[in-house]
């Protein structure tokens, strides 16, 4: 009953560099994430000004999604691509920023523009809006990268026809430490979608 599934493409973003399908495609030297992400945005000619309103977790997830979805999403069609994302620190980076805006009664300035990003799944909303993905979406938290769960749940979505493709992502951002690893899974391709291949791609 289970159909074979494949990894169609993958990318990673960490240490000021971006790799697509294992090949280095962009890097900067001595940047903080804000500077690095802006330069990457310019380099890949993303042209989506909403990017600059996003928090760092959303920027990280969004950049990865652009690299993989640009050639896949057809703007004149429905694209049934589910979003299956996970990380360790949820939205804790922005949570801390928000907490600091309310912890001192003399400097009490809670901002809705910050508060909305105190939810990890907001990055899924950003990707869905950009690509008009009216599709299954879910955000999980694990103590560490969990290829087995992502493998199993992506296959559930495909085998139950809840989605035609699944964009999987590990998008961790806390206090300038970050790593994004995204990959697109579907029922055709060349790299078999198994735990070993996910781990190999994760470490490339």
């Amino acid at each position, binding site marked *: 009953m289970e159909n074979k599934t494949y990894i169609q493409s993958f990318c990673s973003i960490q240490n000021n560099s971006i790799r697509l399908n294992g090949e280095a495609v962009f890097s900067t030297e001595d940047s903080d994430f804000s500077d690095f992400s802006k330069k990457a945005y310019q380099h890949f000619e993303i042209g989506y000004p909403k990017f600059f309103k996003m928090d760092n977790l959303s920027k990280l997830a969004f950049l990865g999604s652009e690299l993989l979805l640009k050639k896949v999403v057809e703007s004149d069609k429905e694209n049934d691509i589910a979003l299956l994302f996970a990380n360790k620190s949820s939205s804790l980076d922005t*949570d801390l920023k928000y907490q600091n805006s309310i912890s001192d009664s003399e400097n009490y300035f*809670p901002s809705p523009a910050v508060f909305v990003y105190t*939810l990890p799944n907001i990055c899924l909303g950003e990707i869905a*809006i950009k690509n008009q993905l009216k599709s299954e979406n879910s955000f999980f938290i694990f103590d560490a990268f969990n290829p087995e*769960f992502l493998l199993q*749940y992506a296959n559930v979505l495909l085998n139950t026809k809840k989605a035609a493709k699944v964009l999987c992502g590990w998008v961790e951002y806390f206090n300038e430490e970050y790593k994004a690893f995204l990959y697109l899974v579907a029922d055709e391709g060349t790299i078999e979608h198994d735990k070993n291949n996910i781990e190999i791609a994760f470490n490339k």
Partner: protein
Amino acid sequence: MFKKVYISDTNCITPLGFDVASNIANIEKGNTGIQKHENTNLMPIPFYGAVINNTDLEAAFSKITTDGNFTKLEKMMILALYPMVDSSKISKKTAFILSTTKGNITALEKQNGKSIDKAQLSDLAKTVADFFGFQTEPIIISNACVSGVLAIAIAKRMIQAEVYENAFVVAGDLVSEFVLSGFNSFQAMSDAPCKPYSANRTGVSLGEAAAAILVTTDATNAKVEVVGDGAINDANHISGPSRTGEGLYRSIQSAFLESAISADQIDYISAHGTATPFNDEMEAIAFNRLGLEGVPVNSLKGYYGHTLGASGLLETVIGIESVAQNRLFQSFGFDEMGVSQSINVIQENETKKCDYFLKTASGFGGCNTAVVFKKVS
């Protein structure tokens, strides 16, 4: 064919009681957990919310353990699971799924090295999992306000894929300074107890609760079968719902398609009903687009406030009792119709035969979830 998946046990810890029976008794009598609070540690101005009394919680928790090293949320979650979990139901094929939006966020109020670790959701899940001795890695779902009901769909899907045989699902969230100030910054907080779908509503009341269910292929003691689900994004806006209810519409459609049922078979809808104008209006539009406008519908937010990541699971626990007892409860706080398209808001408690029940939720990030349940007789 996929295996049938059931919910065979439930529990909840709320301001209306620390078990399902006391919650139902209070709802039946029209009691609400929402009160006016004047606590400047939580909010500079008075607010309406449904808060669990700390003394009552301590008293209940001290009966199950003398270990005091747990946060309020951990105690609520452990108390919710405690009567349901026994070692005979835990194996290497038992999932532990935890749903929350903000977890132990109050740990950030005193910032030090440990507070960051304590605020990590995986720390919360590990603490609760270790208390009961779950053998598999916790699955944490944090998908804003749909988390609690999405957790049911995840459990059912993973069990049908034969990754697990059963799953304990727990959901919980607290009323905190963090969340109160955030909703207030959106000007979404009501200056009176919330009134979902009412023309006289003025916004959200927040609440805190924990709820738990056992999802299993074992039909023994089954209360309902989980027959279909969908969790589809609006792709419209990160902090407001689609005006056409597109994601909710598609989520319900997806759940109906899988259940192989049609709108006219649904006997009851337990909706999200946060009492914000945008949310309530969007739901009314989505229900009308699906031909569900005549189906009795309530929001339980009038009893519990919006309990965030707990709400979908808590409201399912109450909905399961409605189905089991053929008893629909009034949508507390509703008086005059406040949505532009007609929906059948339950105005008085009534006895009605219920076989199929639909639970829906929507949240920030444009997320939506719908799950269809079928009574097991």
